[in-house]
């Protein structure tokens, strides 16, 4: 199961650690959501989301200040006892030494932030969602072509890396070769990146591994990129029907998200880089509201109607000639 170490959270959100003696590498968060423990401080512990990060803002802070000491410590004890991943005080609020003592007893890190509570919550949730997003790794090449993330897939040896290399030489950017880790950041966004080991490397049959970053420069690489379309390369099969118009989009699915997919048949002499480039730019134009296939359809339809009108006129004329 994926998790985020509390120490990483501290670094990323610039939190202050109020309990430095607790090992924050061992404290782990498995949930991207937040709980504000106001009701728990009031004594209601049913449905307590103890696996979430707990944030104390003004409401909880001033409420707990009004409680009598014994009751307050009892409630905090119950909260820490539930093995929450960590407790964060927003707005630079400072917990009392008695609360910190309970936190130490249960080894729960207590942190503080100078941000206002709602901003801190929004930021943590957004960042945690990305970190904890479901992920898979697939076989393919991810390239940024004119800003569109194009995932090239296909059997080993079909020419994915060669296509990527040519795209690089035409000014596009490599994200990952061979292995692409895909993360589902939201229901309509998939983000791809390369595993650390193979980042910015390409394997070319007969040459071996080349390092794109050192060879061609940083302008040709990118660390992460949203995946906008998929191009599947396959050997040309004359019995199979390939899309000739592009009137309807085809889709493929990763982690439950749909992505536009084109099946492109390979034949010696086809320039893959130009095809991929055109597919990317065409997709971009479609997103901006212009669809060439629909334009063609419209023209054919107009031509058809015009011809019908002409024919009708012709028929009228010949009838006139016949009568007079």
């Amino acid at each position, binding site marked *: 199961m994926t998790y985020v170490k509390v120490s990483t959270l501290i670094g990323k959100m610039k939190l202050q650690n109020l309990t430095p003696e607790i090992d924050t590498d061992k404290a782990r968060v498995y949930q991207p959501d937040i709980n504000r423990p106001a009701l728990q401080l009031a004594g209601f512990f049913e449905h307590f989301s103890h696996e979430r990060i707990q944030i104390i803002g003004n409401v909880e802070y001033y409420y707990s200040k009004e409680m009598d000491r014994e009751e307050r410590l009892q409630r905090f004890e119950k909260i820490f006892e539930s093995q929450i991943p960590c407790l964060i005080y927003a707005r630079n609020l400072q917990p009392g030494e008695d609360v910190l003592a309970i936190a130490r007893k249960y080894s729960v890190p207590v942190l503080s932030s100078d941000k206002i509570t709602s901003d801190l919550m929004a930021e943590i949730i957004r960042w945690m969602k990305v970190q904890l997003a479901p992920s898979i*790794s697939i*076989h393919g090449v991810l390239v940024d072509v004119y800003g569109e993330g194009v995932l090239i897939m296909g*059997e080993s*040896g079909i020419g994915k890396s060669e296509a990527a290399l040519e795209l690089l030489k035409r000014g596009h950017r490599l994200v990952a070769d*061979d*292995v692409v880790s895909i993360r589902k950041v939201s229901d309509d966004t998939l983000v791809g990146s390369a595993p650390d080991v*193979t980042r910015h490397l390409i*394997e070319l049959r007969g040459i071996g*591994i080349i390092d794109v970053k050192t060879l061609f420069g940083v302008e040709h690489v990118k660390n992460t990129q949203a995946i906008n379309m998929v191009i599947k390369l396959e050997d040309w099969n004359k019995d199979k029907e390939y899309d000739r118009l592009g009137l309807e989009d085809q889709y493929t699915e990763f982690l439950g998200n749909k992505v536009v997919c084109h099946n492109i048949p390979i034949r010696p002499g086809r320039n893959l880089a130009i095809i991929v480039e055109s597919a990317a730019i065409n997709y971009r134009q479609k997103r901006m509201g212009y669809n060439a296939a629909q334009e063609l359809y419209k023209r054919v339809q107009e031509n058809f109607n015009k011809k019908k009108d002409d024919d009708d006129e012709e028929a009228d004329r010949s009838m006139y000639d016949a009568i007079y």
Partner: protein
Amino acid sequence: MIAKEITIQIPEGLEISPVAKVVQIASQFESIVYIDADDRHINAKSIMGMMTLAFRTGDKMTISANGSDESMAVEGIENYLCNA
């Protein structure tokens, strides 16, 4: 399609040269060969993919193959990785 779970027994684990060897073995076959471990699904014919596995001796993985020579492919890789 066949699949088999194996435990790696070659003493050096999946270092760079054993990986290259596994890829070479897998590439001899027509079948599509995949290695599965944790949530990773790696094409055994892809050298870069296999490099990311970083398996040690004693680790478990599943070899799956699909195609006309699938059983030979799985057997070939198993023989290499399991014969210490």
